[in-house]
């Protein structure tokens, strides 16, 4: 054993001598992290470069000239500006509407036992288990008859569909996680059922509900297929506009628009992180 081992080590050890050098071994995790960062941030970096590039020709590593001219092109285009407006109208509307419909339902799912409870809960998965495009086509035929095609509310409805899953499932879990004795204690000291919900249950559930709302907003904001079918040509939202821009304009325009499309998600994410971090829930409420 030792003879063979010796021989192997001699051969291999000769080639990979640096393996035994401490500095190399210590730097491995750092290299791995750098590689990972490049993999994740690389595309984003190139997006930003493209968005601000005035002239950038092969084989230069960086653009020869930086400029904001593509931003002018984007903001100078009326239909692009309109798409931003529509997106900022529909996504919040969808989120609010979704919360209004889903939160009471989620509370019922979490707190009450009723026949068909499991089946109904699972049914919210069904919208996500079919090929979306087929579903949208069949919904479109229905919307034609209801005169919802190319209307604001048609777009809202089709986007609403994608948010249901988040707005039902996450809050159901959140409400279920709130121990009943917290609510009962409030009733015990004299709070009515409604007051208990608004002063005890809702505040405690808030972090979870915010997360659900964030997901719902992003789902609505990024929705393109359904909106394209139902909304166009009157209601072109940002993700739908993206198709047009990528196909018909120079590359930097797409990059600029991508950044615009990322901004709301980024802002919301940072906001949510702040809200969640100050949470008492993260602090480990134990007994």
């Amino acid at each position, binding site marked *: 054993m030792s003879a063979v081992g010796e021989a192997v080590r001699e051969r291999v050890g000769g080639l990979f001598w640096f393996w035994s050098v401490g500095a190399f071994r210590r730097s491995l995790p750092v290299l791995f992290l750098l590689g990972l960062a490049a993999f994740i941030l690389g595309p984003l970096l190139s997006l930003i470069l493209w968005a601000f590039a005035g002239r950038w020709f092969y084989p230069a590593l960086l653009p020869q000239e930086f400029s904001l001219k593509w931003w002018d092109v984007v903001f100078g285009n009326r239909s692009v500006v309109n798409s931003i407006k529509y997106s900022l109208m529909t996504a919040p509307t969808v989120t609010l509407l979704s919360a209004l419909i889903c939160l009471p339902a989620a509370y019922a799912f979490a707190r009450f036992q009723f026949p068909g409870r499991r089946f109904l809960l699972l049914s919210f998965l069904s919208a996500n288990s079919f090929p979306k495009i087929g579903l949208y086509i069949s919904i479109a035929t229905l919307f034609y008859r209801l005169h919802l095609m190319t209307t604001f509310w048609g777009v809202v409805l089709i986007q609403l569909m994608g948010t249901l899953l988040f707005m039902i499932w996450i809050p159901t879990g959140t409400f279920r996680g709130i*121990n009943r*004795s*917290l609510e*009962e*204690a*409030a*009733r*015990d*000291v*004299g*709070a*009515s059922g409604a*007051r208990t919900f608004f*002063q*005890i249950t809702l*505040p*405690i559930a808030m972090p979870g509900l915010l997360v659900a709302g964030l997901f719902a907003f992003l789902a609505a904001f990024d929705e393109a297929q359904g909106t394209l079918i139902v909304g166009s040509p009157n209601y072109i939202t940002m993700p739908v506009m993206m198709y047009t821009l990528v196909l018909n304009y120079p590359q930097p325009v797409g990059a600029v628009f991508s950044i615009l499309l990322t901004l709301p998600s980024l802002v919301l994410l940072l906001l949510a992180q702040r809200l969640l971090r100050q949470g*008492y*829930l993260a*602090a*480990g*409420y*134990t*007994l």
Partner: protein
Amino acid sequence: MAGLQLVNLTKRFGTTAAVYDFSLEVHDGELMCLLGPSGCGKTTTLRMIGGFATPDGGDILIEGHSVLALPPERRPTAMVFQRFNLWPHMTVTDNIAFGLRLRRLPAAAIHRKVGETLQLVGLPQAARKWPHQLSGGEQQRIAVARALVLEPKILLLDEPFSNLDARLRVRMREELKTLQRQVGITTVFVTHDQEEALTLADRIAVMNKGVMEQVDTPGVLYRRPQGLFVADFMGTMNFIRARYHRDRGALAGGQVGISARGDWHDGAVVTVAFRPEDVTFVDGDAGIPVQVRRVVNLGHYLEVTVDGSGVGAIKVFTDGQRPMSEGQSLNVHFRRILVYAEGLPLVEIEMPRLTHLRTAEEVVEGSPSV
């Protein structure tokens, strides 16, 4: 302050009765323990008093008035739960003040009451803290404070210390007892821990399978448990199954005769019960011959398990004056026994006469007392 009466209370879940025909009277200022194994209906009973469960039959009276029609928020009761008592999004002060604010008390009065109550439970420095900054024991104390601040007529506690470690649990018991005496509030305390019930309660109601087994003071309950269930549940008890023989008394394993007189018919099956501390070791030929199987030193006393033909394994508590070793042969005697028979009242016998029938021939030995 007020008394509480439960009258023929019944609660069914589906077809099974969680609580059946339960009647109990808790006197003004009394600390009553509901004691029983898990699933015996004690918590359900407490929840019915608090208004969180609706009875299917019977009535609940506080100060002589039925509270059945009142929702929990209108009942003069305050409940402390097993856990998850405090609202995590409010400070300790806000937790305690919540009920007072609902009653629209002036801010100054709220401030004063919260301060007083925190003082009462010994946590004045916790006022500005958040629940997650408190230990489990402190959280439960704040929960008691929140219940007491509203000056309820009845205080309900649902195993409030069961999630605390053993040492803290004992301390919290003593604190609660002191606090209850000080405030003088009528209290119903639910527990499955008989030791907790014995140390806390003025009276204990033992429940089993939704039915009241016995309600008595801790002393009586320990000394004269009215049924086999209570006898087994409260403390440690030895049981010997025996057959009643008109001439020889209760015959255990056909070998040991225990002088017992009762209204049993000849051949009736009876159960002889006795506490480990009521077993004595005797010298000479008197008593029942046994062998020592195991000796466990529990500090201030020895727990000795002995084994004898006819009587089986018996637990004995002894003070360790007499040297004990495993395998040793001894004779035991009973200071006091209780004899149970199906459907008949308990018979209590002091210093029973024991006879041991050795092999085929009958040898009768007088016990020292007779």
